[in-house]
């Protein structure tokens, strides 16, 4: 076990817990509400992404403070995207969802990678309509767990990494594993910007 996986497990052990089924059902009621309100699955995906982003922006604070207390010294740990990816998957996912995520599939230029998720707590009790089902074709375009992409995007944005995320494989659609592709677009400039410079 790597040190990051250990840190993730240690942090997870300290987190207060909630029932995973209640979590899954609650998320399900959010998604059904969105599907009812927006109808177009593409728009639902966009909404889920937006909601995830809003979570990501806030959960990164909790993540950094708790990881800091645990003495992980994250500022020294994330020197490159490979480290960042590992922290997201092995510490972040473990700490909040209690699941183990793996990292892989780095591109040649080291600017994109994949997070592989064997267990997805969001998709318990979920079944998407199959293609053959009447009228079900539309919902095939629904990315049920798109919220995770938003969370990663929002969280990394707060640490100055502008990324694009998408779900490329989904167990709900018969794939063997859930795969989230993360693509680094830009490293944002540090600092508070011109507006906040001292006079």
């Amino acid at each position, binding site marked *: 076990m790597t040190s990051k996986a250990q840190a993730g497990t240690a942090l997870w*052990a300290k987190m207060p817990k909630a029932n*995973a089924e209640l979590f899954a*059902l609650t998320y399900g009621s959010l998604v059904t509400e*969105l599907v009812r309100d927006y109808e177009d699955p593409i728009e639902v995906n966009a909404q889920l992404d937006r*909601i995830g982003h809003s979570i990501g922006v806030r959960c990164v604070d909790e993540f950094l403070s708790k990881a800091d207390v645990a003495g992980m010294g994250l500022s020294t740990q994330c020197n490159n995207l490979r480290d960042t990816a590992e922290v997201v998957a092995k510490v972040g996912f473990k700490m909040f969802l209690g699941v183990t995520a793996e990292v892989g599939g780095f591109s040649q230029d080291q600017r994109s990678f994949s997070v592989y998720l064997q267990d997805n707590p969001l998709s318990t009790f979920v079944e998407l309509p199959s293609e053959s089902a009447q009228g079900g074709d539309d919902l095939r375009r629904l990315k049920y767990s798109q919220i995770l992409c938003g969370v990663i995007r929002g969280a990394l944005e707060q640490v100055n990494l502008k990324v694009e995320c998408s779900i490329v494989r989904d167990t709900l659609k018969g*794939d063997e594993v859930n795969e989230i592709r993360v693509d680094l677009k830009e490293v944002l400039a540090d600092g508070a910007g011109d507006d906040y410079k001292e006079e």
Partner: protein
Amino acid sequence: MSRSAQSNTNLLDRPLGRSGGRVGGSSDATSVSLSAFAYVYSELVQYHQGRAASVSELERRLESAGYGVGLKVLELVAYRSKETKRETRLMSMLQFVSSSVWKSLFGKAADSLERSIDHADEFMIVDYEPITSTFVSVPQDLGQLSADAYVSGIIAGVLDGAGFSARVTAHSVDLEDGEYSKPNTTGMPPRKDKAVFLVKFSPEVLSRDAALDR
């Protein structure tokens, strides 16, 4: 047991697994962090808040979001329980909600179950630390909002699904001095209020129950 291996099986053909009643074990695959739940729940509330014109409409929306969950929870808990009997009496149904259902959802039984003194058709389920309002502070302009309306929707769903139709509302009630002082597990300051879920049964449910007494 990975979920992925089952992805090609029809959802209804998959095993239901064990009840998620055990909370706290680190290797426990049936829990997520309370934070994760709180984030998602907060977004659910925000989403409905953006579409509701008033506090009571927001509560109603949360209740209806919980209602569907309640129906499913009833089925889950019923299938998993070892006994194959169905609750037919009003009191035992309430016991079932405040113990079995509560344990499977929140990892503990409800703190108390009380009968209203004034109204024979009203019962109260009390929870001192409902997870739906652990990290919630209600702003002044939303006054009477109870963020636990979602849970009252779940209760209504469970009761309705079992044939006990009832109107369930959530209220936060200020704690009296020394009423409850157990340290909480979330690292938050002690709560100043408790959640009271007021269950008001339909007249036909009460008359049926009275008929069973004879």
